[in-house]
């Protein structure tokens, strides 16, 4: 099968770096430097170019929840290694290393709190934990988030950043697509709003399940959003991809997003949207 064959060795998929260390931070797209403090004050968005540095659940929770106060649920669900999976590393070691490196227990956290006075449930993925991959824990925690939203009739926001389903749990990861979609179908029956906010990158099995199932599908500027990533598509078709292919702007243009929302306007705009939906 031609698309299984890698034409060139060592192709690197472009990924944005995690927040770099140091007082002065270089902006990848412009090469300019910016003071860390200034960047933080602008929610890790370069004020000049609009470049969105990748941030994690800690930062998104700080941005969205009033006075940065929220209750975390679903933490009792912890990763395990159901298949005894081992490639060049043991999966159990990958989990342990990621936990030590990031301080996170898996690639998704659930916060419950208030956003400009509105009750919200926020599920937020962390790319820093094994590429934000969706395994059983991500699926189960999001399931808890969706249940909480449904039972308490509280709007749900899921922030995605992921390379897709987690290979090391094989078909069990795949089944999390079914699980989250089934839970969202139940949420829909209760008429509780669900906003999907896609950040860079949102690909694979996550895009093909909960990320694309929002009542409102919204994305950060410039985010890569795809089913098959650009490297795979390039190999399939054997030619270069059009400029801007699979960016948030491209998806908006092709009808798959409601709008693009810069992080700096995220909180007020999502509040406004929910108030419109909830007749508030």
């Amino acid at each position, binding site marked *: 099968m031609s698309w299984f064959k890698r034409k060139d060795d060592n192709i690197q998929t472009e990924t944005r770096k995690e927040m770099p260390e140091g007082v002065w931070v270089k902006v990848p797209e412009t090469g300019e430097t910016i003071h860390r403090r200034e960047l933080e004050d602008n929610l890790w968005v370069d004020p000049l170019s609009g470049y969105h540095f990748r941030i994690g659940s800690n930062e998104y929770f700080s941005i969205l929840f009033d006075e940065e106060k929220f209750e975390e649920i679903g933490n009792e669900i912890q990763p395990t290694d159901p298949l005894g999976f081992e490639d060049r590393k043991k999966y159990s070691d990958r989990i342990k290393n990621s936990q030590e490196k990031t301080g996170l227990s898996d690639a998704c956290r659930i916060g419950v709190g208030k956003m400009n006075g509105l009750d919200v449930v926020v599920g937020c993925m962390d790319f820093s934990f094994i590429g934000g991959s969706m395994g059983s824990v991500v*699926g189960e925690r999001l399931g808890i988030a969706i249940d909480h939203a449904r039972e308490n009739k509280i709007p749900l926001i899921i922030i995605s950043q992921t390379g897709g389903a987690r290979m090391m749990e094989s078909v069990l990861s795949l*089944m999390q697509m*079914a699980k989250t979609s089934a839970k969202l179908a139940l949420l829909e029956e209760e008429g509780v709003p669900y906003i999907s906010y896609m950040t860079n990158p949102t690909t694979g099995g996550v895009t093909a399940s909960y990320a694309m199932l929002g009542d409102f599908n919204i994305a950060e500027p410039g985010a890569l959003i795809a089913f098959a990533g650009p490297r795979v598509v390039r190999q399939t078709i054997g030619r270069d991809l059009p400029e801007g292919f699979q960016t948030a702007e491209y998806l908006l243009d092709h009808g798959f997003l409601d709008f693009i929302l810069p992080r700096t306007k995220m909180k007020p705009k999502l509040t406004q949207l929910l108030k419109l939906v909830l007749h508030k």
Partner: protein
Amino acid sequence: MQYLDFEKPIAELEGKIEELKNLSNVSDGVLNNEIESLRERVDELRESIFTNLTRWQRVQLARHPDRPYTLDYISLITEEFIELHGDRYHSDDKAIVSGLAKIDGQSVMIIGHQKGRDTNSRKYRNFGMANPEGYRKAYRLMKLAEKFNIPVLTLLDTPGAYPGLEAEERGQAEAIAKNLKLMATLKVPIITIVIGEGASGGAIGIGMGNEVYMLENTWYSVISPESCSSILWKTWDYKEQAAAVLKLTAVDLKEMEVIDGVLKEPMGGAHRDFETTAATVKEQVNESLKRLKKLKPEKLVEQRIEKYTTMGAWETVK
């Protein structure tokens, strides 16, 4: 008959039998005895190879170019079939065939991936890799089945949803996601059988059955062994190991309680005997239908949601 690399010893013996048969046009006792003993040896050899298949060998069998495909099953297990085409938005995807059928007098909506058998038909069927239109056709026909209270049978056999430029442009991810949500609450029975390859989102995109079965020599996983090797080992050379660690066979999935049962194939694989394989599939479909038809629509949905929302493995730490 095409032989896989691990079937070479079988191929050699079968070749010898053919040669002897050509020699013995007139009845020749000595040659006939020789042929008979070779046949016994082939059977023994086949049994010893096929009772100790590695996971990678099963992947190879799942991809065997002579394996029965969806249309073969349709012609072998149904009395009537009317193919229904098109997603009503863009086109008719040839990588998914679908339509209304009768199985032992029962109307059934059949939806399955379809591969081709020669160069032209492989291309025509896009190697069984559906575009968004295929998933949207499936969506439309599942809704139609629900409207007329007709059970749905889905047959999975895909190396993956097509990762092409236009597929991305027209929302491959959105099409699959919509199907998952629809299947969760569809008010008619869904029976799913993996008849070949069950590769990732492209497979589950039509695969959320109330009951799910796999033929013995098929695979179902979040990623193909080749792609898994290329990502985790950074080379394509570890596909055998990848197949092993992905635990992607029917027996593996039954152990993980992801599927409801393993359907036995004839010795040597489904491609050796279409009729027997199809009969096994038909028997399972009838048995599942009998069970599921007794359930009220709400119960069917409840059972399906319960099934998929409890899948996965984690630790609960207080």
